[in-house]
């Protein structure tokens, strides 16, 4: 249980990255499957070579960001479809990751890692969970802050109305590249921490990661809502933890770890299909009713839009 929560909190950083591309930029970025492993591989090899684990983890962020940069350039300057650009980088990274590691995996047993540092300060109980909660919140708050800066607002507008923000002198290409770099940087960093958590980096550890990120984002936002950015990012963090707990639950129920990819896929499919089903919509209505106060406030504010017979723009 504690392990699941801890992992969930680490994966929350992945979910924040996926949120940035999928939700904010409206860009389905599949690079993450590769950049996660790149981050893990980079950090692992540096740690084995006696580099400070915190520095190694920071390096993983940079390597992830470079992966994002490549996808961004392929898409914006090369005019390659976004989905395909991500797949190309992801596949290319597979070979690169093998090169970085010099093999299919790098064990980290007995090395000084950020996790061994964590264990040193907070042990293995709820104390360490608290530390990881703080870490996840720091990343959430940093992202919240960034999205409200001048650059961050331009990035949000790029995903929202590209034509409009271009007419305000913003290079949407540049915004997409920045978003992809940040997102993959976060994912690479998370990969580094996961490797240190499990005690090894492995060539296959990123496979299907995009679904883990998506599932966290979708599940979190379905439960906790998305009205404003700070709420949406909180939902994403919680979604990642809930996802891990769900996986743990499935494992306890007798499923095999090899079934987990299928589970992830089914979970995302369910999350995408359920909202289209009538009965679920009724529940959603009920949920809306609960936040009726918000709705009422919004409605009085938009009274002009509600004049009967007037088209709401």
């Amino acid at each position: 249980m504690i392990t699941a929560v801890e992992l969930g909190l680490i994966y929350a950083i992945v979910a924040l990255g996926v949120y940035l591309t999928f939700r904010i930029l409206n860009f389905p970025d599949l690079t993450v499957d590769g950049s996660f492993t790149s981050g893990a591989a980079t950090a692992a090899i540096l740690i084995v070579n006696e580099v400070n684990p915190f520095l190694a983890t920071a390096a993983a962020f940079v390597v992830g960001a470079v992966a994002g940069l490549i996808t961004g350039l392929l898409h914006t300057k090369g005019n390659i479809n976004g989905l395909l650009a991500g797949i190309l980088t992801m596949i290319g990274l597979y070979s690169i990751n093998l090169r970085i590691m010099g093999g299919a995996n790098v064990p980290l047993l007995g090395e000084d890692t950020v996790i061994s540092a964590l264990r040193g300060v907070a042990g293995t109980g709820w104390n360490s969970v608290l530390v990881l909660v703080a870490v996840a919140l720091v990343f959430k708050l940093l992202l919240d802050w960034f999205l409200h800066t001048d650059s961050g607002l331009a990035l949000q507008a790029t995903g929202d109305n590209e034509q409009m923000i271009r007419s305000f002198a913003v290079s949407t290409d540049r915004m997409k590249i920045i978003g992809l770099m940040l997102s993959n940087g976060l994912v690479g960093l998370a990969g580094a921490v996961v490797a240190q958590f499990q005690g090894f980096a492995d060539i296959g550890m990123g496979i299907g990661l995009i679904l883990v990120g998506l599932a966290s984002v979708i599940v979190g936002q379905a439960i906790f809502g998305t009205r404003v950015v700070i709420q949406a990012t909180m939902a994403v963090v919680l979604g990642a933890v809930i996802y891990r707990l769900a996986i743990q639950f499935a494992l306890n129920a007798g499923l095999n770890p090899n079934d987990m990819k299928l589970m992830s896929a089914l979970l995302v499919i369910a999350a995408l299909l359920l909202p289209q089903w009538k009965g679920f919509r009724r529940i959603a209505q009920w949920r809306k009713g609960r936040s009726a106060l918000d709705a009422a406030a919004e409605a009085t504010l938009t009274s002009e839009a509600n004049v009967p017979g007037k088209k709401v723009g």
Partner: protein
Amino acid sequence: MLRISDVSKTFFPGTVNERRALVEVNLGLAAGDFVTVIGSNGAGKSTVLNTVAGRIGQDEGKVELDGRDVSKLKEHQRAAQVGRVFQDPMAGTSPHLTIEENLSLADKRGRPRGLALGVTKAKRERFAEALKVLELGLEDRLKTKVGLLSGGQRQALSLLMATFSQPKILLLDEHTAALDPQRAELVTRLTKKVVEEQQLTTLMVTHNMAQALEVGNRLIMMHEGRIILEVPEGEKSKLAPEDLLAEFAKIKGAVIDDKTMLQ
């Protein structure tokens, strides 16, 4: 302030879909000029505005802004000096961002965007002050998402945003066409007011003859990619909508005459 020299544009050249949208168009606007553009559908009005904004590149010719050749600049590079309001009320704002965030985006036009907070207390006060001009009460709703506003409110906000950081040229493409008469009236009134106050050089496309005559100091009429009528300052105020309609009839007639002659 704006000079368009011999600009031509053909879409899908060399195919069956070939369309000559602009044919050697020449147009100059002095600082403070407010030119209304009329013409039938497909005349090339929007294409003129799009070539000025850099949204589409011209095949031939040159666009100069404030004495500088901008023909090769990309849309977002020119946008530092070009304000635009589109026909679609959805097009000019970011629906998922709030009113104050949208204004903050407009405020930074042409200036570097860094890591300072987009909305601060001081800015918020300035935004509220600016919104009062619209007389729509939007100054009390700074934190409302723009997607929740009505079409008219959004278009008024788009206009404010387009003119917020004093562009060198303002491009309006049928920006009142999607609104009901009352709202259209309001946005037209606001347009006149803002353009006058800021002495903006403006190019405005409209299908409404009365509006074309009511606002601006000059008028041009386009047909099949060419400017076929230019009404200079001073003469415009003497024109009545009937004169413009007669002018329209004349081109239509001329076109038919050409065809009958060819047969």
